[in-house]
């Protein structure tokens, strides 16, 4: 009983269970599920979101939030497209686009860390504002016809069946894992998430850390935006609109506390797999978009509700108030 409960209480355990069930269901109801093509698609279709989710994890554990990521994705794609349209060499355009991500990050970081506004408010303004800038650049155009190599970056398999995006995701996952769980920065991320003041009283350069995180978030979002552009081969002002909620959902489902200070990349990794498999499975089962989002929403709630209830019942049973 208690042993089972302990396993259930560990978030990762719960996610693992959910994942296994999902995979089993998928295997049962679709012959196409196991195909290499499908496995690759399973990643490709959400790849940009899960890339951004990695840096979002850092931000949320740090006790902040970045609602502007989707708009930054759109912004960088539009910057790239706009410059390309103006005849700038694509490589330069790509660099500039990443630069726009840095600027966006600096913007969020400055107002949050140095002026001390709540990141929710700042990035909410960013959500609207950055999208606005993207709009100014592309207006009502859809900008395409990039050199073949660019589209291939987003679409062709590079290493075996792996596309560049997937390899970037895997690499970034490793990097973030090391940073969060091995490096000084990661340590500070947790400390600040637990108590910003305590960190300050220990001589931590809290402003600098926040700034670094927001810039990282900006750059990665910009990169994801470019990968998205490469995958779709065409850029519009509404690119990635509304992704922020999906991204935050992934992170929270991963067991990261919205109040900061707790959570780990294992959980987020698992939650990524759960959501990918869930969406893919339902897609193959011809379940439409609204049902998909509903199911993910329900899962998000249940994954917290079930352990809580188990805990509660367990306590009642032990006759102890919590």
């Amino acid at each position, binding site marked *: 009983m208690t042993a089972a409960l302990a396993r259930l209480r560990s978030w990762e355990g719960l996610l693992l269970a959910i994942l296994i069930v999902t995979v089993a269901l998928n295997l049962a109801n679709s012959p196409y599920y196991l195909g290499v093509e499908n496995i690759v698609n399973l990643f490709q279709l959400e790849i940009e979101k899960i890339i951004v989710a990695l840096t979002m994890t850092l931000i949320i554990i740090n006790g902040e939030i970045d609602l502007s990521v989707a708009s930054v994705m759109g912004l960088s794609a539009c910057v790239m497209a706009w410059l390309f349209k103006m005849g700038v060499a694509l490589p330069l355009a790509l660099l500039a686009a990443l630069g726009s991500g840095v600027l966006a990050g600096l913007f969020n970081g400055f107002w949050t860390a140095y002026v001390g506004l709540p990141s929710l408010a700042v990035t909410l303004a960013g959500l609207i504002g950055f999208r606005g800038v993207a709009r100014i650049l592309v207006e009502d155009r859809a900008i395409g016809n990039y050199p073949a190599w660019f589209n291939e970056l987003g679409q062709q398999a590079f290493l075996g069946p792996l596309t560049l995006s997937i390899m970037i995701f895997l690499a970034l996952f490793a990097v973030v894992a090391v940073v969060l769980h*091995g490096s000084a920065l990661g*340590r500070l991320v947790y400390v600040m998430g637990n108590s910003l003041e305590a*960190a300050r009283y220990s001589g931590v350069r809290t402003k600098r850390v926040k700034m670094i995180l927001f810039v990282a978030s900006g750059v990665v979002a910009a990169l994801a935006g470019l990968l998205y552009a490469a995958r779709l081969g065409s850029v519009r002002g509404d690119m990635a609109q509304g992704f922020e909620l999906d991204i935050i959902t992934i992170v929270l489902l991963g067991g990261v506390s919205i109040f900061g200070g707790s959570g780990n990349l294992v959980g987020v990794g698992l939650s990524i797999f759960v959501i990918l498999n869930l969406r893919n499975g339902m897609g193959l089962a011809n379940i439409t978009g609204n049902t998909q989002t509903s199911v993910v929403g329900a899962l998000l709630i249940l994954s917290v509700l079930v352990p809580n209830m188990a805990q509660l019942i367990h306590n009642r049973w032990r*006759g102890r108030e919590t």
Partner: protein
Amino acid sequence: MTGERRLKPLLMRVWEAEGVSLTEGGAEPRAQAAVPPILEIHDIAKRFGATQALEAVSLTLYPGEVHALLGENGAGKSTLIKIMTGVYQPDRGEIRLAGQPIVIGSAAEAQRHGIAAIYQEPLLFPDLNVAENIFISHQGRGAVTNWRQMFREAEEILAALGVALDVRSPARGLTLAAQQSVEIAKAISLNVRVLIMDEPTASLSAHEVTQLFKLVKDLRDKGVAILFVSHRMEEVFEIADKVTVFRDGRLISTRPRGEVTPRRAIADMVGREIGLLQPRAPVKQGDLILSVRGLAREGVFHDVSFDVRRGEVLGFAGLIGAGRTDVGLALFGIEPATSGTIVLDGKTRNIRSPREAMACGIAYLSEDRRQLGLSLPMSIAANISLPVLRRYLDRFGLVRTASERATAEGFRSRLAIRTPSVDVSVAKLSGGNQQKVMLSKWLNTHPRLLILDEPTRGIDVGAKSEVHAMIGELAAEGIGIIMISSELPEVLAMSDRVLVMREGRQMAIFDRAEASGERVMTAAMGQALTGEAA
């Protein structure tokens, strides 16, 4: 015996300082037999998982009696309190109120029974104004709040407490003492029959303590039964009619105050003999480390000037809110000074951030270890390495946990931190051990100047004396120490010199010889003494 002899004069001094003579007060036990008990706790037991928090505890409280409850942290005091206030339910045993068995299902019920508690950490609502905080848990004040009336009543209560707060302003930013006063006002605003005070004095300065005691005695005389929990011997022996000692969840002894000495009580608490508060043997002082001239932070404190030498302990005395902590924060760069000079090792420094302070070899142990001093969920090792994390990085910028733990182990044995392992999260440790971890954390920065803010607040007697001993050693090693403390005996016993502040101003600096309880108090209260005024 020798301990006894050393103890006597010290307590004398304290009591004089607090305006208490040995004969007065509750010295002659008042007749209690006639009055029936108000609250009887019978054979209560409570177990959390593996640990038996309380075992077969019985306690009887009489109206008009102050019953002191002693015990080291983890002895079960707070568990008992939580049971009395309906936060926990006992596994066994019963509680009788005025003879009637009762079940206290919730804090609200406890209140209805007239049982109220004042906790060590005040439970205020920073965004509500003072008046609301006082009346927050009142039932039946009507569905609609009558602000004018509420403000008036709140002002009356606070006036009675001798505390002047703007009842309209939010509780955010109140000093700990002010918060404590609001807590007390809150408790007495309810028609209490049983008042539980869990270390109410932990954050009060000597003067405020005397003020509080006036109040407690007044309540007692009105027939309120008071359960008084404190780590401060001298307080307990001033205020209590009965003294009960807990150890490891069991009741060790309950005696009338007349029949127990502090030393006896402590022996019961720790199960072994401990000498308490012997004056520190002065070490020969070395050359100048820090000299501060005309230091000020606009609107907070003014014109503070003092020197600290190697091996010296400079005590900061004064009422809470006198600005002592603010001086510490200024030196550590949390809230930089706005004027004045800080000269460290002959070099004039302009300290604007904790990092700069640390670079100058300054370390500051916060008075609020839970919120500011430590990162509770993190492991002991992680907390100790935090300020100097860079030292533990390999060339890839990754943390070398091995050497981190090694350091932690070192301090663990050196400061006798009681813990199964250095990977345990600090939250799981007792107050005393947390204090030691915080001390280790800052010693690990190899400071030349150590600022200790309330180094023994809310930790039990055993740990306390260990910390005091530690301070002695550090001074002996040649570290300059500034010790901010509201415990007069501590200040007097530990300091080579005592700097007294009042309302943001430096009132006087006394040498060890001339620093006596009443002189320090008078300085803290007002009229600066001629002669040593800095």
